[in-house]
């Protein structure tokens, strides 16, 4: 419990650090909201016009004044207003987040459902032809860029079969579950493909380590069935590196999968951040990055707590 509180107490410090870095970094990049809106036509503005627009976008003050203003808003639960959407930043993020969360969960489910059994199968058939097959497949999965896979899927479906999930308008899960699943399954497969490959490789090597441990030999000598040894005794310990890997991957996916969202035209968090950066929507960039950092910390905390559940010997926070 103390451990949990200590971890939670660090959150605000990390978030403030992240916010300062983002705040300064995005302002150091040349170009601003005015050039993002007007492009080269911004050169036609008189100094007075430029000042009026800078005041409109709230970029007429030095960065530390802007930061102070933003931080004061944050303490009141206000992440600012997005200049692109004309809405509070948090509202925009929360509109996009369900899709990103759902996509991340679906991809992880695909990765674990395919990856863990494949890894266990390969480990228990070590150095056999079937093990080689799984390893080659995992290698292909890991080395195929997801944009190649996404374009291949889209091309094959549209040119070969004349079908494609409805693109352009996304249906949330609670409005039309079937249509929602139809829209998300292909992106989830695209993301889950490489994820599953990583899970396969990690669970195979962890399983191989565990299978050579003394306690597994003991279990075997006591007459526990082969299946029992693998699933009840070996797998829980072999899962620890898989949990670590999945946690990190899941954390990344919660930050949005930019390329896959671009190709499948999904309005997720990744595209939101990218568009916000391109349009120099400072409030939105800051809000998104802060939100993503917060998610990442939560996922890390959950991963650490899962270790305890998997291996009672691990005591969090103890020296």
């Amino acid at each position: 419990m103390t451990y949990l509180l200590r971890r939670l107490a660090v959150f605000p410090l990390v978030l403030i650090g992240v916010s300062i870095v983002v705040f300064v970094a995005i302002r150091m990049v040349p170009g601003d909201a005015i050039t993002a809106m007007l492009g080269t036509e911004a050169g036609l503005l008189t100094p007075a016009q430029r000042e009026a627009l800078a005041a409109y976008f709230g970029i007429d003050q030095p960065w530390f004044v802007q930061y102070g203003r933003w931080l004061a808003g944050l303490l009141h639960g206000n992440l600012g207003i997005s200049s692109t959407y004309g809405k509070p930043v948090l509202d925009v993020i929360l509109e996009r987040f369900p899709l990103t969360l759902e996509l991340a969960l679906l991809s992880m489910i695909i990765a674990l459902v395919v990856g863990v059994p494949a890894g266990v199968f390969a480990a228990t058939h070590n150095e056999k032809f079937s093990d080689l097959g799984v390893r080659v497949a995992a290698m292909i999965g890991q080395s195929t860029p997801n944009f190649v896979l996404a374009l291949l899927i889209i091309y094959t479906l549209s040119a070969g079969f004349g079908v494609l999930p409805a693109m352009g308008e996304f249906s949330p899960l609670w409005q039309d579950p079937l249509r929602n699943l139809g829209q998300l399954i292909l992106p989830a497969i695209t993301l889950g493909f490489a994820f599953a490959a990583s899970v396969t490789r990690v669970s195979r090597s962890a399983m191989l380590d565990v299978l050579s441990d003394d306690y597994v030999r003991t279990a075997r000598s006591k007459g526990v069935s082969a299946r029992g040894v693998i699933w009840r005794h070996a797998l829980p310990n072999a899962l620890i590196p898989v949990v670590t890997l999945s946690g990190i991957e899941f954390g990344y996916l919660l930050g949005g999968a930019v390329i896959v969202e671009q190709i499948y035209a999904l309005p997720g968090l990744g595209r939101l951040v990218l568009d916000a950066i391109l349009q120099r929507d400072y409030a939105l960039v800051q809000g998104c990055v802060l939100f993503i950092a917060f998610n990442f910390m939560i996922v890390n905390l959950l991963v650490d707590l899962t270790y305890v559940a998997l291996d009672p010997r691990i005591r969090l926070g103890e020296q």
Partner: protein
Amino acid sequence: MVQHLTRKLLSGMALPGIALAAMLGIAAVPVQASAATLHMAWSQDATGLDPHKQTAFSSLRLLELIYEPLVRVDASLQIVPAIATSWQFSPDGKELTFKLDPKAKFQNGATVTSADVKASFERILDEKTGAAARANFLSIASIDTPDPATVVFHLSQPDVPILTAMSDVNAAIVPASEIAAGSVGTKAIGSGPFKLDKWDPNAKEVLSANKDWAGGATGVDGIEISVLPDETAILAAMRTKQIDFALLNDPLVATLVPKEASLQLNRVPVLAYHVLQLNPSRKPMTELKVRQAISCAIDRQEVLDTASLGEGKVTGPLTIPSLATDPSQLFCYKRDVEKAKQLMSEAGYADGFSATVIGATGEPPTAAAEAQVIQSQLAEIGVKLDIKMMELNVYVDAWLKGDFDMAIALNGGRADPYTMYNRYWTKAGNLQKVANYIDDTLDSQMQQGRAETDPAKRKAIFADFEKHLAEVSPWIWLYTSYSYTAQQKNVSGFVPTPTGTLFSLSKVTIQ
């Protein structure tokens, strides 16, 4: 053999396709476009709704469907009526009178009056608005509204191109009441053929027909525009008939459209031009002979063929078809490496020099390829080019400061050469800092062109201007590309134009 196998394979896929569709849920079944709504897609969304502030290509394309200017230009770049039914310059060219269409109504039901026109132009001219197009209207001294249907612009000097500038959606007429309420840009209320019902930035726009539009009934009841950032995905969505009409930027994708039996590609040469901008304020581009050597060393057709698959045509500075000179008549438009080497040597750069060329990633999609071809061509005269590709905003920032040796650019064109080039090639041009070159000849030719009302004389003035500009070579004009739209074959009535406008979607029908 391979073709036979492919056909056999594909024919065998029909049945699995249905099964696959079922597996992917309802969403996988091709969405049948209802006859009344045009489903459209583009890869870049509009960035805002204020017609006086937006300059992004996609913003203009959206806003042209919602707002109307006083006049428009048609496919042959002739001025035609929009809100104004007629217009007249006074004999001294200093007074421009418009008669408004009494049927013109805003989408809030109010009639468009001369007060709205006056308020709109005053808003554009107000520095607090931040309207980029203000620079085109600085000759307006005052605006009179003798009656609700008449507007008189009093100009401080004869300004023929102002009429073309008024055809731009950046000079759209918005309700005076909305200006007073400060809601232009949050509510999109124009007098155009469509009303904006919903805008979800970077995702979707929903437009419905404006039943009160003075231009008559629209061909469809509405337009739904989806933002599909990847153009390959747009093509895929068109194959499955989810999308009826699409705007394409990438020539690589556009050239695939004619291979689909159910699709039609529309392409038209546009006014925008691809150019290698030299910076004549930086050595050695300060030397006329060095700039001319670069012009002679570049094979423009090869740049076009390699970077853009030959999709376009080589151009001189003027891209307006009725005014453009045949490029073969311009200085060094036929590649001449020997002459280039000779000029380099005369300028004292026989051993060449090193320079950096900047370009924006993906804007245009051909930028990097153009830079590479030019790099290899200039290497032949000893010019070592270092290519620096940057994110669009970073590029724009450097470009506006004139902070480059050379820049690959795709610059927008206008239907009038004065409006198109006064920003660069006049002494008072707002973008002189970018062009970094001006001489008395260019400045005086531009001033003459601005005041001249006789079309034949204007043409002669601008022909001389173009010839001189190509000869002093501050920039190396390369080519104009095409604007592409793709459509299902059951869509008819769309007229592509050199300005890229989608205004004719107002009369498009779906069979």
